[in-house]
């Protein structure tokens, strides 16, 4: 058996070993890695920094993988020297490992420009898991962080730190961000989007020194300007890690020189990954490295033949909502280059193609990168664009999208990050009976890194998997082209706290009467009331906490828990009605009293005189709990429905919901308060309660489904709460419980609520309690208005005599 030694336990080296294993070679493999971790997905360090993924989640090859494949992994051990004459790799422990063949996969290291002060404490680079862990440990809410370098890596680092609560500034030498990949208009759009995220962008700034006594406390620029900094990340570029090869006497320029077979100047030594230089090109992204790995695997196992011919430079930013893609040439002034452009400033979309000799020469996409794959393929295969000329900027009409995947050659690389091609995916689908994207990710790793190929993977699933279940997605509105699920994910993941922030970064900045209230609800629910409330994004009812009527006046419905009132309350209501000349006083269908026709400016005084809390009759929230008299007076009663109803109302009142929530509690199955046609109902039985959900008695009538039968009132109330919070978190805005229950199915809802694990139930209830703790009676704004003119009409400072 031959000894194969791999120096570097990173993405390219290990991917190459995986390819080698496919050839069932006669090798005994040893991998040296000077990081102490098993091979992980370096690309996702940005997600780890941002808190979107844990370090465990980005592992690519577990310890089992090394063991199962008989690979000796020497982790935390660095190769210091290669004795080519004796064919020995000498490591940091002094041990000598003989090799028959050796692969250099040493990657690259962060480039730190010679800035005075770069050695100070709290100055970091961002390359390894250890770097990332240190950054996470040091970043704190309110910390001032400065990222030097406005390229891909710098921007991702900046966003990650910001999501951890730091105040982040990005400084960049050039006057546009990512200037090597973007033209000026694209760079401008990118700057705007980054600033919209709340990151300060300083351009152009030449960093002259890092200030501070031992520990960094500021950054000084060549202009003389200084800014404060508690933490500095240098992301000024990378350089191939070629010192080992150089000292071993291999031919090295910027990187280790390799030919099309990935051979170096020594016939027994090969190189792969970012440490290489091929035809004058060095690398910074994984896709071409995966290609290299496949070629080298053939070369080294005696199947020399396939060649690596290089790759057009390509870059894609992984900041959610800031979609940037660039590949190939950027310079449009080259002779013979035609430009094809598309721009939608309000949605922040910009697409530009450079075409030369009817071949794609370069591409820049901002705001919509869904077509990046098509362009990458055109670039790589130098496709003749003549037949595509009418559809350059958008794919041809959807009818043939299935055709598109059908026509793709089996070798077409679907997932560039992990080097998975169409054949791999189709085989996996057939072999393992895969039906969902999640399973596909698990099996093939496709779409598990940057996620940009998930659309294509879904298309393949649709075409090949017999029972592919498509997630039905409805987008909210044209301002914000995402589904509710995606939006919840975005808001949570990106820590967005205000409606305008969401619209600025992910939408058209304007919003409308559809998305603004929906987003307001979502933010309130997701952050349990700890969001930045923006009343301008609310419907008028929620700005003044009353229901607007056809003549512009408002109706006032005080809360009357369980429909129970008192003579004193009734007297106050009567007094208010007279004092404010309320045109109509009406008993509602929900056991409450409605005062109709109140002027906006009278609202605060009406509420104060009533001295009763808001009944939320104007909003998508907890309306009422209608009760019957139950055991207290009724001769049929078997449960105390009135007390249970009042308790239920106390527990949920003042909370907001996707649509209004009406409830009912009855003391026996005679159902006098119609609990079985309410959103949530409790039906008393002898010795138990039935909790029912999803009833309706509106435009259509629907009998509620049984959620659970329980013995005690306490259990029944808990079951109501579980369903209530689950509905809050998972329904689309303006989706009533009866649509929600039909959409998900009562079985699924039971499993997710009353029959879920204790831990899950506890979490649901904790979030409910957290929201409830901060929810208050909206009518208290009579004393502390949200703004000085919330209820009052503006009086002009001067009157004009007419």
């Amino acid at each position, binding site marked *: 058996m031959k000894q194969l030694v791999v120096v570097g336990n990173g993405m390219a080296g290990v991917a190459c070993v995986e390819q080698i294993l496919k050839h069932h070679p006669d090798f005994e493999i040893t991998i040296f890695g000077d990081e102490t971790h098993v091979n992980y997905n370096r690309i996702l360090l940005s997600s780890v920094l941002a808190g979107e993924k844990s370090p465990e989640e980005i592992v690519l090859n577990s310890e089992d993988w090394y063991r199962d494949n008989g690979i000796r992994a020497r982790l935390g051990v660095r190769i210091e020297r290669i004795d080519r004459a004796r064919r020995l790799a000498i490591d940091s422990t002094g041990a000598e490992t003989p090799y028959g063949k050796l692969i250099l996969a040493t990657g690259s290291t962060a480039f730190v420009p010679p800035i005075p002060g770069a050695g100070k404490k709290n100055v970091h680079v961002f390359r390894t898991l250890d770097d990332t862990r240190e950054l996470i440990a040091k970043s704190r809410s309110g910390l001032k962080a400065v990222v030097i370098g406005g390229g891909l890596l710098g921007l991702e680092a900046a966003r990650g730190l910001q999501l951890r609560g730091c105040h982040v500034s990005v400084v960049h030498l050039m006057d546009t961000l990512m200037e090597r990949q973007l033209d000026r208009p694209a760079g401008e759009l990118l700057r705007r989007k980054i600033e919209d995220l709340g990151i300060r962008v300083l351009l152009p700034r030449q960093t002259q020194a890092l200030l501070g006594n031992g520990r960094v406390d500021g950054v000084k620029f060549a202009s003389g300007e200084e800014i404060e900094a508690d933490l500095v990340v240098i992301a000024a570029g990378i350089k191939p890690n070629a010192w080992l090869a150089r000292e071993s006497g291999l031919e090295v320029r910027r990187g280790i020189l390799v030919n099309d077979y990935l051979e170096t100047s020594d016939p027994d030594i090969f190189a792969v990954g970012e440490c290489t230089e091929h035809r004058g090109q060095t690398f910074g992204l994984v896709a071409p490295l995966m290609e290299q790995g496949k070629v080298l695997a053939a070369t080294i196992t005696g199947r020399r033949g396939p060649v690596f011919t290089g790759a057009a430079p390509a870059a894609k930013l992984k900041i959610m909502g800031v979609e940037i893609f660039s590949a190939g040439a950027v310079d449009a002034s080259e002779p013979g280059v035609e430009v094809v452009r598309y721009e939608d400033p309000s949605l922040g979309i910009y697409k530009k193609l450079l075409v030369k000799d009817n071949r794609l020469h370069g591409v820049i996409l901002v705001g919509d990168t869904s077509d990046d794959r098509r362009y990458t393929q055109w670039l790589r295969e130098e496709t003749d664009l003549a037949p595509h000329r009418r559809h350059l900027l958008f794919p041809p009409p959807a009818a043939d999208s299935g055709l598109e995947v059908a026509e793709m050659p089996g070798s077409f690389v679907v997932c560039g990050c992990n080097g998975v091609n169409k054949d791999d995916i189709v085989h996996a689908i057939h072999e393992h009976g895969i039906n969902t994207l999640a399973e596909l990710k698990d099996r093939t790793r496709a779409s598990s890194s940057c996620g940009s190929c998930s659309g294509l993977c879904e298309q393949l699933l649709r075409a090949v998997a017999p029972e592919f279940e498509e997630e039905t997605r409805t987008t909210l509105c044209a301002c914000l082209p995402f589904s509710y699920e995606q939006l919840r994910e975005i808001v949570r993941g990106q820590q967005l706290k205000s409606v305008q922030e969401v619209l600025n970064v992910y939408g058209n900045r304007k919003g409308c009467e559809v998305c603004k209230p929906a987003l307001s609800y979502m933010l309130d629910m997701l952050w349990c009331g700890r969001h930045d409330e923006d009343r301008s994004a609310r419907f008028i009812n929620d700005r003044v906490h009353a229901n607007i009527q056809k003549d512009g006046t408002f109706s006032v419905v005080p809360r009357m828990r369980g429909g129970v009132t008192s003579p004193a309350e009734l007297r106050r209501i009567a007094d208010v009605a007279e004092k404010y000349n309320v045109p109509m006083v009406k008993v509602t269908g929900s056991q409450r009293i409605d005062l109709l026709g109140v002027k906006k400016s009278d609202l605060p005084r009406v509420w104060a005189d009533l001295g009763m809390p808001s009944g939320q009759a104007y909003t998508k929230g907890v309306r009422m709990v209608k009760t019957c008299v139950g055991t207290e007076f009724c001769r049929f009663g078997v449960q105390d429905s009135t007390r249970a109803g009042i308790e239920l109302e106390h527990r949920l009142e003042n909370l907001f919901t996707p649509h209004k929530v009406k409830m009912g509690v009855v003391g026996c199955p005679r159902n006098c308060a119609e609990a079985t046609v309410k959103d949530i109902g409790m039906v008393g039985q002898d010795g138990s309660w039935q909790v029912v959900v999803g009833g309706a008695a509106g435009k259509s009538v629907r009998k509620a489904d049984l959620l659970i039968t329980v013995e005690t009132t306490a259990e029944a109330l808990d079951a109501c709460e579980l369903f209530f919070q689950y509905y809050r978190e998972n329904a689309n805005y303006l989706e009533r419980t009866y649509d929600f229950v039909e959409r998900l199915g009562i079985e699924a809802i039971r499993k997710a609520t009353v029959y879920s694990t204790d831990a899950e139930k506890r979490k649901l209830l904790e979030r409910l309690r957290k929201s409830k703790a901060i929810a208050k009676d909206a009518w208290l704004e009579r004393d502390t208005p949200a703004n*000085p003119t919330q209820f009052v009409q503006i009086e002009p400072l001067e009157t004009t005599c007419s």
Partner: protein
Amino acid sequence: MLINFESRWTRIAPTASIPPREGRAVTVAGAELAIFNLGERFVTISNQCPHQGGPLCDGIVSGAVVVCPLHGWRFDLNTGLAVRASLPACVETYPTRVEDGIILVDVAAARRIEPNEAVA
């Protein structure tokens, strides 16, 4: 188009009395106006929706458009025209400016673009 050239700027209120992206009603010289804070500027239209008199000041603002709270008609705050060419409706607009932190409206210079003019 109908323009009254006799200008009569009236000092209305401090800019701070209208939160960003909200509107407020004010009655000046017998006219009920809705003033909106669009962030970088203020605009004024007549407060009454031509549909059924809905209070436009209470509408949700979408860019430079206000959506009537009653039935959702939409009006361009720059021109006063209903958005959507098929809807032949409009409201008056009034010149508005800010001076020393005070919003001023020229009540006499109401401008009304008749929908057919715009379509033509």
